[in-house]
């Protein structure tokens, strides 16, 4: 048995960093798009109009019943078909993540909106605001404040889930680590390094979430 060669990681760092950029961009796009679409879903789901709430509920139930890996596959093959031209693995992955995460963020935001006293909505409407103004100016800021810890935790989970894009040949951090591991025959070094990187990022993000939330509770 030969000794470990950690130098392989140093040599592969630029390549690994490219992968990390893909992972971070996917996470960023997924969180941003997921929160935006999730907010719309939450408002629809709490709407007094039955058609809207049923449509939103159906969406959420569907996406939460399917494994992420299946949705990634599906959009990788479906989006080019629908558009009639190839869009690339990154674009289809971004769409898949946004649509998938929106179902989860939507439920988080719905709980957040429900946690705001009904009187707040009434007071805002009594002052002449429209329903959407009352939501945007009064209810949602309070809902997001209450939901920030859960949303950040969901974002951390999503960051880990981006590693699934290896199934559609997208070169995220995990995929790049696998490629280097196979190419240079350094499986132990690369997978250990990948594990440490994921752990450090996710653990420090969790710590940040916890310290961020302390003043919010007070």
């Amino acid at each position, binding site marked *: 048995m030969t000794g470990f060669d950690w130098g392989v990681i140093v040599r592969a760092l630029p390549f690994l960093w490219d992968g990390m950029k893909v992972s971070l961009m996917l996470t960023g796009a997924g969180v941003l798009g997921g929160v935006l679409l999730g907010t719309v879903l939450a408002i629809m789901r709490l709407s007094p109009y039955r058609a809207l709430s049923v449509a939103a509920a159906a969406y959420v139930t569907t996406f939460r019943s399917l494994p992420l890996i299946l949705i990634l596959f599906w959009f990788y093959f479906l989006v080019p078909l629908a558009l009639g031209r190839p869009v690339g693995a990154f674009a289809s992955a971004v769409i898949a993540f946004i649509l998938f995460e929106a179902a989860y963020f939507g439920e988080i935001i719905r709980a957040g909106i429900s946690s705001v006293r009904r009187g*707040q909505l009434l007071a805002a409407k009594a002052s*002449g605001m429209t329903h959407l103004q009352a939501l945007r100016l009064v209810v949602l800021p309070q809902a997001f404040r209450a939901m920030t810890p859960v949303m950040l935790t969901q974002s951390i989970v999503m960051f880990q889930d981006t590693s699934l894009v290896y199934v559609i040949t997208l070169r995220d951090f995990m995929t790049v680590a696998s490629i280097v591991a196979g190419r240079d025959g350094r499986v132990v070094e690369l997978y250990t390094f990948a594990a440490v990187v994921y752990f450090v990022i996710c653990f420090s993000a969790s710590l940040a979430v916890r310290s961020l939330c302390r003043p919010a509770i007070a």
Partner: protein
Amino acid sequence: MSAAVILAEGVEKWFGAAHVLKGCSLSVSRGEVVVICGPSGSGKSTFIKCMNGLEPFQRGRILVEGVSVGEPATDLPKLRARIGMVFQHFELYPHKSVIENITLAPMHVLKRSRGEAEDGARALLRRVGLADKDRAFPSELSGGQQQRVAIARALAMEPVAMLFDEPTSALDPEMISEVLDVIGQLAAEGMTMVVVTHEMGFARAAADRVAFMDAGRVLEDRPTAEFFENPEAGRSKMFLSKILRH
């Protein structure tokens, strides 16, 4: 006799199977102060929330300055912008400072500039005796102070009438008078208002008329002096004797 600012006729409302308003009528003229009293569960809070369309109702009609609240075509936000409302639990926006609470609707509904809205807000804060609290947050204020800010917030829209839904019921006893003083001051200045309250001392001093509600009906609606000296309905006699005993 000027035209009614708020006119309710035969309003009926069901919460599911519960018939909570059974044909309530009330007319409030410009400058008039009407107190609605009655035992809890009599429907008075629901009735007052129907007046600006916060609660839907199934039968009857309510006109605010001649505009029908229950019509689907009615622009309710526009109608509500002309009617101030003060709630039992204040409902100040906890994520906004006192001055932001007051300027929010003027800026977003009336499209006032920030400077203009803040000038108005400061003047109102002086009027309710809280000029120094403009940068405070609701959680830093006492209940009485919060309710006075809520009154200033409603006045910032320059309403033609004010609705008060049990404005002192959630207050500690020592804070009730500071809020009633502000409401009484408004009444004296000629503000049109409907006040749901158990404060009979306030009713006697400030109201032009007192309406007594029980079990979803308006049982009496009479000038204040008459109501207190000679209540007609047996239920209001009983209610008064209970509430005025101490």
